[in-house]
């Protein structure tokens, strides 16, 4: 399918909370392009794509804060390099700033490799969008993602020379601004672990106490962990959940200490971590057997949900195809903000699942895609 034409024309107005008239947007970034789907019920979707054919799409951000919908996309061609594009008309047209939204300043001597994360900030900070990139770096935009500025506090961090590269590259892949405090931001990097700033990004401290690093001689170093994904609890911004490279954890003190919540899961390895957008204590993971066996346990793909902050987990597999030996990558999963919350994820085997009931049941909405790298869902209104 061609890029652009064929996208349903929708009036991208903000959702005012009345989801009975909502349109649900599902964006799927793959290794060879992006697909965009719209649905009135999160069951039947109309998809267009591939957009950006032959470009990998490792990051997508859907910004619905401004009374409109902006889709921001990290695009990377193996030949022509990385860039950031955005669309304000649900993918009908794309804009790429002439000089690039994210480019390293000359004095760094660095070049952008890949945009791993595009994260719009909270609703009371319009225009602020964060990005996490490879090489390990965090960026902040104040103009809705058209131009980003390198965070120097992290770029000049004394730990930088000791941060390593995970299999996918050395990147800051998670950026979580706190809704409670504009000066508090948590990030996660592979490898390096969780870092936190409480001064708006001027300085960053490692916050990995309790998180294991089984691949290092020191099993619990100050930093160096390979934290795969972190999500923030909606009810208490000081509570966060982490899927580690071996280990699932929760912090109740803003990242100062972490405790295992892996009991009850079939495996503590995995890449994803999702938190409910409103309800405290609810999170989702997709377990993978182990570092040395990167398939779902027994080849049976399943999502696991906790409603008590990790004390117990429920296995959710209704509607998932069996068997499935494919991994769900760290950003290939998303929740929306509807009621009940939708849960969406895609596999490296190219199947995308949607749930309109918080994961209790799923249905495949796309199959046969290239490896799914990123999934984002939103309510965009109608």
């Amino acid at each position, binding site marked *: 399918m061609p890029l652009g034409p064929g996208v349903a024309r929708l009036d991208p107005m903000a959702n005012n909370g009345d989801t009975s008239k909502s349109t649900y947007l599902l964006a799927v970034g793959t290794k060879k392009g992006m697909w965009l789907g719209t649905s009135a019920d999160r069951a039947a979707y109309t998809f267009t794509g591939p957009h950006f054919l*032959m470009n990998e799409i490792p990051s997508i951000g859907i910004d619905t804060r401004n009374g409109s919908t902006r889709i921001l996309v990290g695009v990377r*061609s*193996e*030949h*022509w*390099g990385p*860039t950031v594009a955005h669309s304000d008309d649900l993918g009908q047209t794309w804009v*790429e700033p*002439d*000089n*690039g939204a994210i*480019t*390293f300043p*000359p004095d760094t*001597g*660095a*070049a*952008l490799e890949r945009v791993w994360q595009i994260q719009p900030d909270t609703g009371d900070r319009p225009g602020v969008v964060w990005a996490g990139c490879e090489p390990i770096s965090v960026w902040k935009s104040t103009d809705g993602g058209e131009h980003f500025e390198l965070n120097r506090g992290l770029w000049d961090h004394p730990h930088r020379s000791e941060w390593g590269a995970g299999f996918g590259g050395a990147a800051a892949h998670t950026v979580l601004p706190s809704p409670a405090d504009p000066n508090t931001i948590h990030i996660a990097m592979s490898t390096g672990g969780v870092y936190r700033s409480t001064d708006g990004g001027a300085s960053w401290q490692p916050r990995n106490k309790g998180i294991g690093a089984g691949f290092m001689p020191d099993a619990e170093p100050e930093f160096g962990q390979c934290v795969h994904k972190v999500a923030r609890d909606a009810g208490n911004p000081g509570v966060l959940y982490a899927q580690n490279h071996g280990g699932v954890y929760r912090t109740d003190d803003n990242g100062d200490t972490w405790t295992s919540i892996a009991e009850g899961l079939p495996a503590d390895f995995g890449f994803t971590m999702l938190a409910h957008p409103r309800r405290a204590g609810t999170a989702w993971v997709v377990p993978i057997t182990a570092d040395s066996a990167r398939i779902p346990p027994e080849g049976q793909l399943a999502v696991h949900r906790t409603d008590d902050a990790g004390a117990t987990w429920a296995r959710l597999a209704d509607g998932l195809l069996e068997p499935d030996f494919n991994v769900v990558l760290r950003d290939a999963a998303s929740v929306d903000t509807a009621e009940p919350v939708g849960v969406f994820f895609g596999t490296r085997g190219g199947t995308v699942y949607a749930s309109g009931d918080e994961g209790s049941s799923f249905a495949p909405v796309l199959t046969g895609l290239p490896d799914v790298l990123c999934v984002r869902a939103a309510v965009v209104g109608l």
Partner: protein
Amino acid sequence: MPEVNVLIPSLLRPVTGGREELRLDVEAAGATLADLLDAIGAQYPVFNRRVRDETGSLRRFVNIYLDGDDVRRLDGLKTRVAAGSEVMVMQSVAGG
């Protein structure tokens, strides 16, 4: 006019206004490949970012041929370009 002809691959024509080739005055644009790319980039900045990263390095899987020779086997982007030359920008064989 002492010109150089730069052939644009089809995949990059959307960022050169659809143009298949660009003719540049060598004297005005300078005399190295980097100078030529700077001159093109002034008019087509996205083309420049596709071919070079922000450090000015030629992207790993982009090849440039000067009169049929791979510039990586010459003097890279410092290679001198004479009037009447033909510069061909191509993507290398990579990916899967």
